[in-house]
């Protein structure tokens, strides 16, 4: 779970207790000890180099870890309540059918090159995000649906108009992909935005220098005065600088942290957590609040087209065993398609119950009988499925191998493949080669389910009209449900629809959710107040370093 609320709470409780129980002098001593100190450089070890810093490319963690420090957004999604609160936008109005959004901007905000962040700049950003730019190669941002155009009302007022209702847009203004950059950035070709020094934002930190693929230096912006309105800390960030160093090797990242050479590292595996905690270092885990880590079926493939087979495999999956064997308390067992911290979540754990007898009975009913080698057969075909491991997901190969053992008990063979990325990317578009695929998406809005399953989005099920040009299979009922979530202006109805689609996906057994995927970081004891946005992207605006 997110550590921010508990930390904040603990600090409040501590200082209250101190004030009540102790004398004024000692109470002040306690408070003084807790007071943030300005200065210092945070050394951050990242597993992979960033690829492109166009804000909508921020879905990739290494990109967003940087973007979150150098850009600001129109609104701030409170990670505790998931409500959108003022940031660069002081206030906003939404019309009844969610086709027009008008934002009033804070005045006096500037980009780090001195140009103003005004309505014209915001218009330029969202026009590019919402419509793309074919000439320069900018794709449309995933989070923005049904965008039509923007209107600059006056220097501090901007209006966005949508073709169809876009109820997810307010939340979309707060996501990592909607960081606002100087218009001059968007004049450059998309293919050149891997160069961090070209990215100019209005954030609390500024890119200072870069060694491509190795390290990146950020320095504090002294005149920063426009943090999210409801964050206690205002003004410049406490840190003087942040240094990102790409360190691909897991053991080197952890070793360097524990040897005092680094202050915070991203991506530590569950089996390394005890080693970190044993030395009183902190494991920071933040939920991604989206579609859970799962395997999704491609019903185009005849082996998994039968609902009974998919239901049998769901019943044969023991996700509790996967979580307890491979992971830690930071990886809660999945109880629905989306995480329990996601908006619109409904507990559907009874649909995911582990039941070997039921699994066997369903496979028998479907006509799959055990063959001589224990693998079930039907009309001469074996129930043998292939799946590629997904490298970005935590311990995905081990997860799939354990799943393969579990399915083996009921006579289904699951081959876990680890091909090169080219073969994996190609085969994953062919349902006959890959009847299932691991997937997950993080975004704290009900639109996230559409992102994962809709054919023209991530198309997890490989439906007709999606990524696979030869697909013939589709589920119009599912797609209609997904579309209705993306365009239902009434929030209560939208939440109800989100519940319906979760139940539908599990009734059809299109997806087997396994666990709620967190992002896990580790930090040194003297690093304080690292915060995370609603989808686990770190923010170092509040972070400070005490004496070692």
């Amino acid at each position: 779970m997110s550590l921010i609320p508990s930390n904040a709470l603990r600090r409040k409780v501590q200082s209250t207790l101190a004030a009540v129980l102790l004398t004024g002098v000692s109470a002040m001593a306690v408070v003084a000890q807790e007071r943030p100190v300005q200065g210092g450089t945070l050394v951050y070890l990242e597993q992979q180099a960033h690829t492109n810093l166009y804000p909508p490319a921020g879905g990739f963690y290494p990109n967003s870890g940087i973007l979150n420090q150098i850009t600001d957004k129109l609104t701030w999604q409170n990670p505790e309540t998931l409500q959108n609160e003022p940031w660069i936008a002081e206030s906003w109005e939404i019309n009844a059918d969610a086709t027009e959004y008008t934002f009033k901007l804070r005045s006096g905000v500037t980009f780090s090159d001195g140009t103003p962040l005004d309505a014209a700049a915001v218009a330029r950003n969202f026009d590019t995000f919402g419509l793309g730019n074919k000439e320069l190669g900018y794709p449309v941002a995933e989070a923005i649906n049904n965008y039509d155009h923007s209107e600059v009302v006056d220097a501090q007022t901007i209006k966005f108009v949508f073709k169809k209702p876009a109820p997810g847009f307010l939340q979309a203004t707060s996501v990592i992909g909607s960081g606002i950059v100087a218009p001059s950035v968007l004049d450059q070709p998309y293919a050149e935005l891997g160069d961090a020094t070209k990215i100019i934002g209005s954030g609390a930190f500024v890119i200072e220098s870069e060694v491509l693929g190795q390290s990146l230096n950020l320095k504090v912006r002294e005149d920063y005065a426009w943090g999210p309105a409801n964050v206690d800390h205002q003004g410049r960030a406490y840190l003087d600088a942040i240094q990102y160093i790409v360190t691909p090797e897991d053991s080197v990242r952890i070793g360097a942290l524990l040897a005092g050479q680094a202050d915070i590292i991203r991506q530590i595996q569950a089996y390394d957590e005890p080693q970190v905690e044993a030395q009183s270092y902190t494991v920071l885990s933040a939920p991604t609040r989206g579609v859970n880590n799962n395997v999704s079926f491609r019903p185009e493939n005849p082996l998994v087209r039968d609902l009974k087979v998919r239901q049998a495999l769901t019943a044969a999956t023991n996700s509790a065993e996967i979580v307890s064997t491979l992971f830690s308390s930071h990886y809660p067992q999945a109880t629905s398609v989306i995480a329990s911290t996601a908006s619109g979540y409904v507990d559907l754990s009874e649909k995911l119950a582990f039941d070997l007898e039921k699994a066997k009975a369903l496979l028998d009913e479907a006509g799959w009988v055990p063959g001589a080698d224990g693998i079930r057969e039907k009309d001469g075909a074996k129930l043998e499925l292939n799946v590629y491991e997904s490298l970005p997901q935590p311990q995905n190969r081990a997860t799939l191998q354990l799943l393969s053992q579990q399915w083996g008990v009921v006579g289904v063979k699951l081959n876990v493949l680890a091909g090169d990325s080219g073969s994996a990317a190609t085969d994953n578009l062919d349902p006959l080669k890959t009847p299932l695929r691991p997937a997950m998406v993080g975004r704290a809005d009900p639109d996230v389910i559409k992102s994962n399953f809709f054919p023209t989005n991530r198309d997890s099920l490989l439906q007709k009209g999606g990524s696979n040009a030869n697909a013939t299979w589709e589920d119009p009922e599912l797609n209609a449900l997904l579309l209705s979530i993306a365009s239902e202006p009434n929030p209560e109805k939208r939440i109800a629809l989100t519940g319906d689609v979760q139940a539908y996906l599990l009734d059809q057994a299109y997806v087997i959710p396994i666990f709620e995927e967190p992002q896990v970081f580790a930090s040194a004891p003297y690093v304080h107040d690292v915060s995370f946005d609603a989808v686990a992207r770190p923010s170092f605006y509040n972070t400070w370093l005490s004496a070692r």
Partner: protein
Amino acid sequence: MTRLLVSRIGQAAIVLLLAFTASFLLLQALPGDAILIKYQNPEMGLTPEQIAEIRVLYGADAPIWVQYGNTLWNFLQGSFGYSVQAGVPVNPLLATNLPPTLRLASLGLVVAVIIAGALAFAATLAPFAWLRNLLQSLPALMISVPVFWLGIMLIQIFSFRLRLVPIINPSEFQALILPVVTLSLPIAAPLAQILIRSLDEVQTQPFVSVARAKGASRAWVLWRHVLRNALLPVLTIAGVLFGELLAGAVVTETVFGINGLGRITEQAVSNQDTAVLQAIVILAAVGFVLINLLVDLVAPLIDPRLNTPIGASA
């Protein structure tokens, strides 16, 4: 001599064109491509149409022979195209990554030669037979140690336990110590093996006995008479070791998290970043051609017999 050079340069041009063509065809034959790998990644959240548009933008939708012609033309003009994965042109990528790798590789080679030489002399001159045997079997051990394991062990011991050199934010000198050691040991091993055997062979020749009979010490004979004669096979193998250096740099740079050609090679291979790979193949081919030319030019200085044209005596 000029004639030799001209014909060698002509050969080199043909080798380079063949290397370019072969690598182009092989990379095209692989399933998938860099655009698919980067943009089909669900974390990017792009639709199939958007990916198709990106493909057009990179010119990756053109027929293969058009792409071949375009790439070759650009290469001849010194422009290596765009890295899809890193989102930057290839030229600055190489400009940033070539110098550190050259430094690492050349220091690695120098240290490897020193280690190999010291080991070979010690193995030949050591006083006891068991000690000579032990030293002679050391290269076999060194060659069997996986580079990534060696690198991680060196980091664990010298950086994390003993805290002698930091891995994160080291000074320029500190940054080289462990990687150079890691890279040089597996290179030193075959050099030492060949030098030991070659020294052994030369030592059995009659002129060595003559020199010893005249009263020269073993070390003197070894240094003055044997070494020069034993060096030729080593020099030949040194040309081949250039490839080993590049391969070693891939692992060393990744383990130590340092910038360089090896690291971008590794990333380009796993992401099928064709433009980067093509540039690296050409760079490596140029390297091989230059080193072999150098070996051919230096060899006659060590063994003057090589200078006599083969046809002259006939």
